[in-house]
């Protein structure tokens, strides 16, 4: 399963690669990274990550926010699943995410065990 992780923090790559190292080693999943909303859209457009089925995106990013990215992905690639990850657990972000069709909404710090279960359930 190919997963695209979108976050403006570069260390997220290191973190996810270590958190999912067993799954990566066993080739159960493949991780792709984009460090902005625009970079994520570009990657999807270039079909670099054509096998991507799930996008894990931060909400609070400079430039295009995770909410905007979610809206665009759902408009162009309706089959893709999108989980939003955020440190801001306020009602506005949650309601907007649900309205734009987010498939899940997780608050940071991320509970990786729960995330893995959700990914397996897809």
């Amino acid at each position, binding site marked *: 399963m190919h997963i695209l992780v979108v976050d403006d923090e570069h260390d997220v790559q290191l*973190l996810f690669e*270590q*958190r999912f190292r067993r799954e990566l080693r066993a080739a159960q999943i493949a991780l792709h990274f984009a460090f902005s909303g625009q970079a994520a859209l570009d990657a999807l457009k270039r079909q670099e990550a054509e096998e991507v089925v799930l996008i894990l995106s931060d909400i609070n990013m400079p430039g295009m926010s995770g909410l905007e990215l979610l809206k665009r992905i759902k408009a162009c690639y309706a089959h893709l699943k999108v989980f939003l990850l955020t*440190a*801001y657990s306020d009602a506005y972000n949650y309601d907007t995410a649900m309205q734009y069709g987010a498939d899940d909404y997780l608050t*940071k*710090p*991320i509970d990786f065990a729960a995330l893995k279960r959700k990914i397996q359930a897809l």
Partner: protein
Amino acid sequence: MTAQQRPPGSEVDILIVEDSAIQATLLKRTLAQHGYAVTVAKDGAEGLAMIRAQKPALVISDIEMRGMDGYAMCREIKRDEALRDIPVILLTSLSDPEDIVRGLHAGADNYLTKPYDDQYLLSRINYVLTNRQPRTGDGEQGGIALHLAGKRHRIDSDRQQILDLLISTFENAVRQNRELRSAQLELRAKNAELEETLRQLHTMQDQVIAQEKLASLGALTAGIAHEIRNPLNFVTNFAELSNELLHELHDDLAEQQALFDPETFEDLADLLASLQQNVQKITEHGKRADRIVNGMLQHSRGQAGVRQPTDINLLLSEDIDLAYHGMRAQDTSFNVSIDTLLDPTVGSANVVSQDISRVFLNILNNALYAVHVKHKELGEGFRPTLSVRSTNLGDRLEVRIRDNGNGIPPAIRDKLFQPFFTTKPTGSGTGLGLSISRDIVVQEHQGTIEIDSEVGQYTEFIITFPRQTS
């Protein structure tokens, strides 16, 4: 107007000479109400003609008029044998002492300064009418010479006229003086009132500024808390990962034990154990910092909170820690013993935890402040003590926070919950803590908040609220 107020000899003819129609009408109405028969002329020439025609008992004339002014008309009256006995009252502002001389020269009988009240006007008319004496026409022998404002004047008026005019001038002066004095007293009172209002405004302004600062500090805190949260997440996450990796390393090492000589293996195992321990500490403290950041976020949040089952004893313990460390951070030389007796059966209540926590913190901070103040007064002989009790009352629970500070005088006990009331020096308190606390406990949670205090001995806040609130 009642009949008694009518002057003797009513139906007295009075001629008003006044070029302002409004002034004339007002004066006419006043005089008519008191039984005088009033006619009005609109300038000096018309006035003179009417005087000649109807010989009124009294003339009241304005001074400044177009054409023939009041002085000129008066002179004409007094020059005329047939008219000179008709008394003339001139309306003036008496802004210049020379007005008196001009009036004397013109032969006026009396002055009336504007503005005048009805009572004064009537008494003056009465005076003029009752003291009316025929003019002799012959002035003082040789007249009187006087210097006024650098000018030489010669007064040829008769004694009666001079006396009348001077008395009316003096009366005016006395009256004006009296009015000025009462105006001055009024001004002084108003001034004191204004100063008090200004003082209150300054106090309010200080409070508003303090609130603004507090609000911006709250926003800043929320911002900082969010910013700290992200790196903190990385710290805990990587620490947890390192812990897992160290476990794997430990397992791998155990499998490969045969490759090492025993001493080296033991060294490696020791190092690994220490690393594991350190990483665990990093995780632990990272999580602790995260809890603090969470607390900061909850405190700075303005919106209405959500009710959730909350362990009240745990909340109290956290707030006691927070208040204690907050105080120690401000003054490390000061210490206090905190005697905590939490009833383990208190359990949880359905409350907005950050709001209830705010109440606890407020009261704890006040208690610490009180013992701190007393400690500064009494020195080392005083043992600052705080006691915190929680009690299970069935479907309600009670929290008592008591300090052995200076107590609260009965006179101000009622004011404690008023917004902006504070006993702390300016800048130290907003005066909002207890008013917000009462709103939270009473309005939001249908609870009660009471004070028990003895001056010089103690203050105790007793808070109760139901476990379930609507």
